[in-house]
C-alpha cells in the first residue's frame, strides 16, 4: 500500500476536524448532495462533443489542404498545409484528456501523439510500403509528431521539403497518416453521437466504473503524465536528471511547443471550471462540485480556490518560457524547471484533496518501469 504523506496529513486533518464535530459518532464521509448527472450532461454536450466536433473538422481542413498541396506542390501551399496541421494539433489538445469510451478502446492518444517520433521507423515504413499503422509498434511512426517531422524536418530548406514530400512513397505515407488521424477522430465522434453520450450521462453513480470517477481519473492522468511530465518535466530532465531537449512536443517545427502546452493547459482549466467549448457559458463542473461539497459540509478548506490560485502561478511561470521549449531547455532550463514546479504544486490539491472530497479512488498507479 502506497500512501502519500500528503494524504496522511489530509486524513489526519479530517479526523481531527471530525472529532471536533458535534456528532462524533457520524461516518467520516462528507455529505454529497451534488447531482453528478447534471455535470456529466454539461461535460458531454458543452465540452466533450463540441471539442471532438471541432477536432474532426480541423482534420478535414488538414486533409483538404493536403489535397491542395499535392495538386500543385509549392512552398506557399506547404505553409498552408503546416498551418492546418498546427490548427488540428492545437485542437487535439482540447480532446486528448477525454480518454474514455471509443477513444480509450482504440488507444486514440497513442496513435495520435506519441513523441518523439522514430524517424528511422518512419523511413523504413516509407521504403517497405506494406506497413501496418494499426500496430502498437507503429505508435511513434504516425500522428502529429510524424507529420511534424515530414512537414518541417524532412530536409533543410522549404524547397527541398516540398520536393521530398512529393516522392511517390512519401506522398502515400503522408496521405495514410492524415487519413488515419481523420478516420480515428470520426470513429470517436460518431460513437459519442450514436449512443455513448447517453451511456455516459446515465452512468452517473459513484463507483470505480462510474463516468465521473473514470473521467476525473482520465483528467488527472492527463494532467500528470501528458501535461506536466511529457510536455515539460521530461524535456527539462526532471525524471532522468539530464536535460533532454529533443524530447519536446513539436521537435521539428520547434516554435510551437509553448503554444501546444498552453492550449493543453487551457483545456484542463476549462474542464475544471466548466467553461463551455464555445466560451459562451460556465456550467456545472469540478469547481462547482467542490464548492458544493464545501458548502454542504461547512468546511473551511477551499480546495477549488487552492487549485485555481496555483494555476495562476503556472500561467506566470509559462509567461517566462520561450516559444521553443527545446531552445529554452538548452539556453535556460531553470525556467522550464520553474514551470514544472508550479504544475507539480497543483498535483496534491488535485489528486489528494479533490479526490478525497469527491470520494473518488485513483485508478492508475505509477508504472513499474519494467
Amino acid at each position, binding site marked *: *500500500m*502506497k*500512501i502519500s504523506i500528503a494524504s496522511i496529513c489530509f486524513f489526519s486533518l479530517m479526523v481531527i476536524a471530525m472529532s471536533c464535530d458535534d456528532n462524533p459518532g457520524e461516518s467520516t464521509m462528507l455529505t454529497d448532495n451534488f447531482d453528478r448527472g447534471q455535470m456529466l450532461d454539461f461535460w458531454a454536450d458543452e465540452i466533450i462533443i463540441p471539442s471532438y466536433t471541432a477536432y474532426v473538422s480541423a482534420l478535414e481542413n488538414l486533409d483538404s489542404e493536403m489535397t491542395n498541396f499535392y495538386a500543385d506542390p509549392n512552398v506557399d501551399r506547404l505553409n498552408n498545409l503546416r498551418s492546418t496541421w498546427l490548427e488540428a494539433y492545437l485542437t487535439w489538445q482540447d480532446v486528448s484528456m477525454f480518454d474514455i469510451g471509443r477513444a*480509450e*478502446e482504440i*488507444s486514440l492518444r*497513442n496513435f495520435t501523439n*506519441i513523441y518523439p517520433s522514430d524517424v528511422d521507423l518512419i523511413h523504413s515504413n516509407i521504403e517497405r510500403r506494406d506497413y*501496418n499503422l*494499426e*500496430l*502498437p*509498434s507503429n*505508435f511513434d511512426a504516425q500522428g502529429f509528431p510524424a507529420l511534424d517531422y515530414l512537414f518541417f524536418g524532412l530536409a533543410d530548406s522549404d524547397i527541398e521539403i516540398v520536393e521530398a514530400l512529393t516522392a511517390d512513397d512519401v506522398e502515400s505515407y503522408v496521405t495514410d497518416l492524415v487519413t488515419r488521424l481523420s478516420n480515428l477522430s470520426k470513429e470517436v465522434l460518431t460513437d459519442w453521437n450514436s449512443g455513448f453520450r447517453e451511456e455516459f450521462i446515465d452512468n452517473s453513480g459513484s463507483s470505480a466504473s462510474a463516468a465521473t470517477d473514470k473521467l476525473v481519473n482520465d483528467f488527472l492522468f492527463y494532467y500528470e503524465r501528458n501535461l506536466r511530465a511529457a510536455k515539460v518535466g521530461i524535456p527539462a530532465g526532471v525524471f532522468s536528471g539530464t536535460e533532454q531537449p529533443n524530447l519536446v512536443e513539436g521537435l521539428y517545427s520547434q516554435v510551437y511547443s509553448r503554444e501546444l502546452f498552453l492550449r493543453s493547459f487551457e483545456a484542463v482549466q476549462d474542464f475544471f471550471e466548466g467553461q463551455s467549448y464555445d466560451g459562451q457559458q460556465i456550467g456545472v463542473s469540478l469547481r462547482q462540485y467542490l464548492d458544493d461539497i464545501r458548502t454542504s459540509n461547512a468546511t473551511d478548506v477551499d480546495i477549488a480556490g487552492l487549485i485555481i490560485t496555483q494555476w495562476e502561478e503556472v500561467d506566470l511561470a509559462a509567461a517566462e518560457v520561450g516559444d521553443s521549449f527545446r531552445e529554452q531547455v538548452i539556453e535556460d532550463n531553470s525556467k522550464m524547471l520553474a514551470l514544472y514546479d508550479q504544475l507539480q504544486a497543483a498535483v496534491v490539491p488535485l489528486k489528494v484533496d479533490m479526490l478525497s472530497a469527491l470520494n473518488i479512488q485513483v*485508478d492508475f*498507479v505509477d*508504472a*513499474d518501469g*519494467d
Partner: protein
Amino acid sequence: MKTIKIIALATIMTLLLGSCGDGIDDINELIVPINYEFVRDGASTVSFSGQTTRISMAAELASAMQDFSTSQEALLEMYANQSATGAEVNPFSDASLNASTKSVRSKVAASRDFFSSNTVEAAEIKADFESWIISQVTEVFPNREELATAGKAGQIADGSSVRYVNGKGLEYNQAVTKSLIGALMVDQMLNNYLSTAVLDEASNIEDNNNEVVASGKTYTNMEHKWDEAYGYIFGADGTDFTNPLATLGQDNFLNKYLSRVDNDTDFAGIASEIYEALKLGRAAIVAHDYDLRDEQISTLRANISKVVAVRAVYYLQQGKLAKERNDYGGAFHDFSEGFGFVYSLRFLRDAQSDEAYFSRSEVDSYLTQLTEGNGFWDVTSATLDSISEEIASRFDFTVEQAGS
C-alpha cells in the same frame, strides 16, 4: 514427520559430539562490521565473482530474447554457454562472459537440498526454460508484425509500450526472467549455499575452526559458500558490494524485486533485515558460532521467500485490476511477470519446517489455472483471487498488503 525427528535427533547428537570434541574455546569474539567487509591477514576474504557472472549472463539472455534478430541457437547458447553438442561458444556481447566456463543452465534447479536426488524434476525445470526460449523464436518472433488476439501470438499495447505475447498472452521473456529469480537465485541461495549440507560439507567446520583456507585462497570454504549466497542477491554488476542497500535495484532479478518489496510500506525494512542477516551470519562463521549462523539462515529463508511470494500476489492482483479496466496489454504484462514469480514459488523454503513452501504439483496447478484455454485472455478475477489467497495464506501477509 518421522524423518524430521530423526534428523533433529541427529543434529542434537552432532552438536553434543561437536561440543565434546572441540570445546567452546574455539568460538572467536563476534565482530559484526558496518559493511559487508571481512579480512584475513590484511586481505579481503569475500568473493562471489561466479554469481556476478551468472547474473550478467541471465541479463544478456533476457535482453536478447527481445531482439528479433537473435537466433534460437544463439539464445540457447546464452542459456547454456555451450553449443547443443557441448562445444565451446561465444554467445555474449561481453567478452568476459564468453571467457567464463560458467553458465545459467547448470545452476537452474541445481541446489543440493532440493534437487541433488530429484534430478527428474531438475531436468524438467531446465527444459521449461529451453521451451520458453524456443517458443519465443518460433511463435512470437514470426508474428511480431501481427496484432495479438486470443489464441494468436503478436503484439499488444501496454500504454504507449509494446508487448510481444504468445497466443495465451504470455511474454516468454518475462517467464524466463522472473522464473530465474526462483530457479537460479533463490534456489542457489536458500537451498544450496545456505544449506548446512553445503556449508558444513566434508571438513568445512574443522577447517573453519582452524582457519584452514581453501587452496590458493584467502577464505575458508565455509566463508566462501556463504559469500556465494550473498552474491545472488547483492552481487550484480554495478552494486556497491560492501554497502549494497545504497544501490538497490542494480539487476532485473532478485535484487530489483527486493527493492520493490522494500518500497512497499507494508514491507519496509525487509531489505535491511536480509542484509543484516547475511552480514551477521558471515560474522558468526568468522566467530565459529554456528548456532548464530543457523539463526540467520532461518531469517533469510523466511524473508527471501516472502519477497518472491509478495511479488507473485502483487502481479496477479495488479493484472486483475488492469484487466477489469479492459487494459489487456497492461494486464498481460503483469500476468507474465506474475507467471514467473508463481513459477519461482517452487524454490521457496519454509524456515520453520525446513521444507519447500509449495510442492511442484501445487505450483503446476496455479500455472495451469493461469494458462488453460486461451490463458490470460480467459483467466477470471475469481481464479486470480483464489491463487492469490492461497499463496498469501502460507505467509504472514494479506493479499491486500501484497497486492498494492
